């Protein structure tokens, strides 16, 4: 089954490249997303076995935390695939470019699946770099000057960052000579034999490298540009899945340090970067003039929250796992809705978008509800995750951290709400945009699905999900 999940997107990508046809492209994306969703849910429910073929078993494995990230990715990819159908109709993309888009997206997803399943540190690195390469062409898909600039910054900054992570991996293998392998299970088992000096140094490099991909401050420079210039379904995938998968890579490395009893060193670094990200996003959020960039800064903030959760013991990690899913769903819904807004107003400026509720009520409602989710209002899982995180602060004896945490999060929420309220509720200036065309139902369907998921999980989290989350959180011991 594992082999199928990895191979299906690659095969579909080849098919779209061989036969560039609108229907084939659309269905390749939908079928690919469907296969991944079906099989990851099947594995979750125990219908399929998570084991791969024997010869791949060392390289690719699916554990509980991987399954959680795979499920999140499946849902986000499915919604991006549905929205892409609408996007290409609206943009009237030529079949050839459309097939290029579909193939790149499928390969991008395949690379992310590779990251999730990798059981070898250097192989994980290979797949993270592959996600950079496949998504860079997607960011430049609209081929405008600004998109080209964003794609260049993205591919260059991330490639250099990831190269530094490779330096970290080499340093780690210097320190782990007695183990003689970079398979995660060997590294975990022999963590106490790794020379602590080299391990610490390699962690610093890997943190910078993977941190660049995760998009945490101060190495986030590419993120607002790339997220704002990419086509909306691509932005949704970038924010909802790419950042997560790189974060999973960091979690796997962090486990080595925990096994080697060096977690106090890594925790202090990760926590510092987490709070720095909160601070940076709070500063930039309040004066952001472009709503897609605003969402991108919110992604930096949420990655900061995940970083902080990672350092706060079991409860913190449980909160981080819950938050990962909730953030991915909500942020994807927001980015897809931003595609609607962009279609209606032809502008990414917050000041140019007014009175969405009157002009296009459904888009307006989707926007405001999704903003409330990301802000962490009570019925939604984001509230629960932030609440649990604060509980984790007190449990780990660092209750005073609540003060800066609250302060930064409040500033971010204030910035987002201020922009959202003016976009949704203010009176539209009727002369500039007289009428709004009605959008196809495909432009609403994925967001509605994502928000329904969030609402139902927030109202009553199913036991099976809690079980998966706590199993995932057990990964770090």
């Amino acid at each position, binding site marked *: 089954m594992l082999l199928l999940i990895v191979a299906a997107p690659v095969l579909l990508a080849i098919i779209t490249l061989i036969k560039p046809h609108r229907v084939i492209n659309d269905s390749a994306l939908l079928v690919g997303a469907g296969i991944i969703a079906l099989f990851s849910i099947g594995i979750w429910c125990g219908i399929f076995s998570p084991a791969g073929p024997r010869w791949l078993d060392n390289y690719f494995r699916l554990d509980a935390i991987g399954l959680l990230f795979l499920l999140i990715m499946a849902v986000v990819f499915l919604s991006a695939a549905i929205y892409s159908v609408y996007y290409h109709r609206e943009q009237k993309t030529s079949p050839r470019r459309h097939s290029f888009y579909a193939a790149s997206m499928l390969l991008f997803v395949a690379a992310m699946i590779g990251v999730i399943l990798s059981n070898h540190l250097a192989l994980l690195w290979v*797949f993270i770099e592959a996600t950079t390469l496949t998504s860079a062409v997607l960011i430049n898909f609209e081929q405008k000057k600004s998109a080209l600039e964003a794609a260049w910054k993205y591919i260059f900054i991330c490639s250099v960052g990831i190269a530094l992570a490779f*330096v970290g991996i080499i340093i780690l293998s210097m320190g782990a000579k007695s183990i003689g392998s970079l398979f995660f299970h060997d590294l975990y088992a022999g963590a106490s034999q790794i020379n602590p000096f080299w391990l610490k140094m390699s962690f610093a490099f890997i943190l910078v490298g993977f941190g660049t991909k995760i998009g945490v401050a101060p190495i986030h420079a590419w993120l607002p540009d790339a997220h704002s210039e990419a086509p909306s379904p691509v932005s949704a995938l970038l924010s909802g899945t790419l950042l997560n998968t790189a974060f999973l890579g960091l979690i796997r490395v962090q486990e080595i340090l925990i096994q080697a009893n060096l977690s106090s060193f890594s925790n202090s670094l990760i926590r510092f970067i987490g709070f720095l990200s909160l601070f940076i996003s709070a500063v930039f959020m309040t004066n952001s003039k472009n709503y897609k960039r605003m969402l991108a800064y919110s992604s930096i903030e949420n990655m900061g929250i995940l970083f902080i959760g990672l350092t706060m013991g079991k409860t913190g990690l449980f909160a981080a796992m819950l938050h990962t899913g909730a953030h991915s769903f909500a942020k994807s819904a927001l980015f897809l809705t931003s595609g609607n807004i962009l279609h209606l107003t032809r502008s990414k400026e917050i000041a140019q978008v007014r009175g969405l509720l009157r002009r296009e009520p459904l888009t307006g409602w989707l926007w405001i509800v999704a903003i409330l989710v990301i802000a962490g209002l009570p019925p939604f899982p984001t509230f629960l995750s932030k609440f649990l995180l604060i509980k984790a602060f007190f449990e780990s004896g660092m209750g005073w951290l609540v003060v800066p945490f609250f302060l930064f999060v409040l500033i971010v929420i204030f910035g987002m709400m201020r922009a959202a309220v003016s976009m949704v509720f203010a009176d539209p200036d009727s002369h500039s945009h007289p009428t709004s065309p009605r959008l196809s139902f495909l432009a609403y369907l994925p967001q509605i699905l994502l928000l329904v998921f969030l609402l139902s999980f927030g109202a009553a989290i199913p036991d099976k999900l809690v079980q998966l989350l706590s199993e995932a959180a057990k990964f770090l011991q």
Partner: protein
Amino acid sequence: MTDILIILFGTLMLYVFAASRIEAFIKTLSLQGLILFFLVVTDIRDMNWINSAFLVLETLVVKAIAIPWFLLRTIRRNEIGREVEPYISQFYSLMIASAIFIFAFVAAFWAARVEGDIKPLYFGVSISMIIASLFLIVTRKRIITHILCFMMLENGIFLLSLSVANEMPMLVNLGVLLDLFVAVFLLVIFFNKIQSLYDGSHIDVLTQLKD
């Protein structure tokens, strides 16, 4: 023999700092690839044949021939002016390069004393190469030089990985090479697009996106 090769490798880096022509830079990259090839060959007894064949292919074919040829073709096609155009003068560049060398070697010898089983020369040259490429990226105006510096960074990392006797599995080696190749290919494609969309190939033209 190995030591002489590594010293030559390091000297080439100093030459890059002093060189003012882009073509010279690319030829240096190719020479570095060749030196890496010789380093692999002198070291070949300890490896199994698949790995050594692969490393020979990677250094000789990809690093010494294919990528430099591809880059050279790009600059000739685009008729880019020949100067690298640094932000700071050649003299200060060289001073800083020396400082990087000193720092890297102090760090390498110190690490060798703490650790014992690392080779200070390998370690010092590769670390200084990595730091120096990052420094060059920051101080050069032309976008094409950024790609060249990225290649130099990769060469430094390759040297560092050679100093680890520990072999990576074949699958990983293949993946790393494929990533590198596609990365350079894409960077050049994007570079060509920037050339055609903007007038001028300075990094300063890319300042449209900001808050």
